[in-house]
């Protein structure tokens, strides 16, 4: 997030696109509702499902999955048409406005209405609310990114914020909501094939040298492989050994049949986890890790706030904290650096990562943690980004044209299949699957089917159905609902027993390498 959760309370307009906030970031969802209730904040929601917040919205746009960019361009078209853009901001702080204007010109509300399957007047209403607001924040999640056009989606959101001068000020901004507790931190810490911590590029000589000096070792300048590329390489035999720490690709990754084949092709697989996951089954060695309650450390949340994790109990059984296991393996491999406590690791992080430069465990004792960038020990942390200048100097408009999803429904696979998360479960359920109440609440997978489709196929609520895509097939219970458009099927991906990811399309966004979880073509049959 460029901005801070607390700032939501004072925002004039919230635009949510591709985020079921009340289910997936419940406390942010509640904060948004407080703003609506107490601050008179206006709300625009765009989502293929009529999520809970849609009922609170001033405008709700039930867009067809995969049409985000068309909608965003349409909104910008209206804003420019109505003269609601922030001319002074554009002049002072941005580049390439002309190209944006050129590209969005074609996206008239009428045309976009047709692409997105919504009303043109609603697009105009939404654009007016966002465009007229003094402080407007955009909130998005995987509904934007998990497309082959994910990067374009993110850029379009950034374009919209730049166009209206909603960057670099309080209670506004571009606010991706991160799905997992430390997805922000693990990226900051460079669990990424192209980066060192703090997004310093591995292929940059001065960067590599800096780390070589600090770590006292020679380092590769070659960009590594992303998850999807690793799996492809494994299947081909180019990757022989894998070490997986706390991940469960056998449920979470697209096209599970492919994942399985890839992992089975390996010579050797180490899996380190707190529970015996689906991926563990394919491992050669399993290492027991300590849970978050059994170790010290830090997580970085979606608003860039670095906060302490504190050890409450001893690790269960013979398990050990992940950092300790990794350190021991590393030491045994001959790299002899030792740490007696995570705080020492943080000190090393701070010395090498500009954004974390001022962070240490003593400062983190403060109840509010520290929001990066926090470059020096006396820096208070940063509430909202770009307050003084946009990260790269001037904000660059990167306009994008609407492109269709990689796989569209056809005769054989006539339905659009989309996936997501629900309130009562988390990721692949290794944790929530073991909490009795949560399991009672939502015990098994289901697929949401609209009433018309259900009637057509004579499917009743609770009936078993078979879903088949070009990649796989699963059987699952039907949930008939009126919150989804005709011909769109939604399924939570949490459940290994009927894993949605047998069906999903592994096609990637060319830049971010993110798979298109949100759109696949499937067929649907009732099982008698």
């Amino acid at each position, binding site marked *: 997030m460029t901005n801070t959760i607390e700032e939501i309370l004072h925002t004039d307009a919230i635009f949510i696109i591709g985020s079921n906030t009340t289910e997936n970031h419940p406390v942010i969802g509640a904060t948004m509702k407080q703003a609506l209730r107490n601050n008179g904040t206006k709300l625009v929601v765009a989502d293929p499902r009529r999520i809970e917040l849609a009922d609170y919205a001033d405008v709700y746009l039930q867009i067809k999955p995969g049409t985000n960019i068309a909608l965003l361009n349409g909104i910008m078209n209206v804003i420019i048409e109505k003269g609601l853009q922030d001319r002074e901001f554009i002049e002072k702080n941005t580049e390439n406005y002309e190209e944006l204007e050129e590209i969005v010109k074609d996206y008239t509300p009428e045309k976009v209405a047709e692409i997105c399957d919504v009303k043109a007047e609603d697009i105009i209403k939404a654009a007016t609310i966002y465009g007229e607001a003094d402080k407007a924040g955009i909130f998005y999640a995987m509904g934007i990114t998990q497309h082959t056009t994910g990067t374009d989606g993110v850029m379009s959101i950034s374009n919209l914020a730049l166009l209206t001068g909603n960057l670099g000020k309080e209670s506004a901004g571009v606010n991706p909501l991160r799905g997992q507790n430390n997805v922000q931190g693990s990226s900051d810490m460079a*669990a990424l094939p192209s980066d060192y911590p703090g997004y310093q590029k591995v292929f940059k000589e001065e960067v590599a040298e800096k780390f070589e000096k600090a770590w006292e070792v020679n380092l590769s300048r070659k960009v590594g492989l992303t998850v999807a590329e690793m799996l492809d390489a494994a299947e081909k035999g180019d990757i022989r050994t894998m070490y997986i720490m706390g991940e469960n690709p056998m449920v979470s990754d697209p096209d599970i049949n492919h994942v399985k084949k890839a992992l089975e092709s390996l010579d050797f697989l180490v899996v380190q986890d707190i529970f015996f996951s689906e991926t563990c089954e394919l491992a050669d060695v399993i*290492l027991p890790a300590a849970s978050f309650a059994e170790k010290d450390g830090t997580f970085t949340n979606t608003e860039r706030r670095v906060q302490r994790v504190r050890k409450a109990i001893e690790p269960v059984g013979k398990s050990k904290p992940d950092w300790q296991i990794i350190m021991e393996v590393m030491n045994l491999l001959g790299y002899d650096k030792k740490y007696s406590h995570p705080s020492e690791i943080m000190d090393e992080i701070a010395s090498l990562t500009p954004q974390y430069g001022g962070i240490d465990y003593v400062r983190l004792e403060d109840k509010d943690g520290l929001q990066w960038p926090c470059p020096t020990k006396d820096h208070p942390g940063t509430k909202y980004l770009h307050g003084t200048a946009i990260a790269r100097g001037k904000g660059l408009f990167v306009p994008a044209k609407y492109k269709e999803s990689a796989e569209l429904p056809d005769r054989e696979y006539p339905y659009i299949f989309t996936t997501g998360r629900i309130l009562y479960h988390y990721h692949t359920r290794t944790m929530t699957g073991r909490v009795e109440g949560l399991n009672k609440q939502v015990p098994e997978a289901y697929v949401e089917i609209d009433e018309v489709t259900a009637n057509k196929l004579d499917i009743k609520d609770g009936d078993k159905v078979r879903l088949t895509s070009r990649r796989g097939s699963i059987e699952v219970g039907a949930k008939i609902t009126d919150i989804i458009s005709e011909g769109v099927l939604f399924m939570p991906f949490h459940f290994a027993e009927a894993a949605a990811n047998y069906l999903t399309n592994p096609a990637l966004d060319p830049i971010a390498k993110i798979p298109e979880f949100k759109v696949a073509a499937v067929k649907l049959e009732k099982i008698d």
Partner: protein
Amino acid sequence: MVKLTINGIDYEVERDKTVLQVCNDIGIDIPTLCHDERLEPYAACRMCLVEIEGAKNLQTSCSTKVREGMVVHTHNDKVMDARRDVLDLLLSNHPIDCLTCEKSGQCKLQDYAYEYGVREGTYVGEMRNKPIDDSNHFYTYDPDKCILCGLCVRVCDELQNTNAIGFEDRGFGTIVATPFDQGLGNSACVSCGNCVSVCPVGALMPKYDTKFRLWETKKVRTTCSYCGVGCQMDLLVKGDKVVGVEPAFDTFNNGLLCVKGKFGYKFINHGDRLKTPLIKKDGEFVEASWDEAYKLIISKIEDTKAKYGADALAGLSSARCTNEENYMFQKFMRAAIGTNNVDHCARL
């Protein structure tokens, strides 16, 4: 600033504050059952009554703003008598089962009864007699213990904005309820438990697996391990077990959690936890020592590296692990193995 006198001492305090806030600031302890700084003043419990000279009746300090020249008495006989009588009235309609009540030790009613020396409710008469609502998977609601402070209803309304519960009926018959007594489990409730976190008595209680008294536990402040919001919370620890979770009130999440944060801690001490390294032998996993496991891993890594080069190895780090662990993992892949083949599931 305004000048006022509290219990015979002159103070100069900020304008726009309530008498209660001012008393809290200067360290005068005023009891409250229905007050929560995050919510609109409610003034229902009447425990925070104080005497303000010149006013006909006692005034609730939670809803009275300080005024120039105000003379306040927070603990004189009149005030103490009123508080004692309020406690007496509450206890007269409340089961006195502290010995077995889960809330004992963290119950405000119990604490104030002790502080004000009210042994029991002395008014004999009708008591509320309603069935316990057990329909929610995470917590129970016992209307008989409810003191109608309204915190649950107001948190559900003003902060959580779910409005699953409300007041039913009026007067002595008032209770907190779901519409048509459908039960929490069948209502709009999203089981966030934010009502449970503010209940001052044992009316709304988590379904604990482990019995404990608060004084047997320690609280450990930490960050929730579920979504990216990163709510702050306290783990309640008894011995080697996490037995409960309470939200942090002085942080950005402002005392709020969701169902996973509040009740999803039970995986920690779940019997399924991996407790020892396992090595697959002939298709079966067998228990192994750390040494054995490490030895095997090191030999396989060195083998692969020798045969195919460092880039034939790859590692997946985790968005569930700490910053320090992610840092260690990528350093391990890069510095100890020599490849940049490291990624994690940021995109999933």
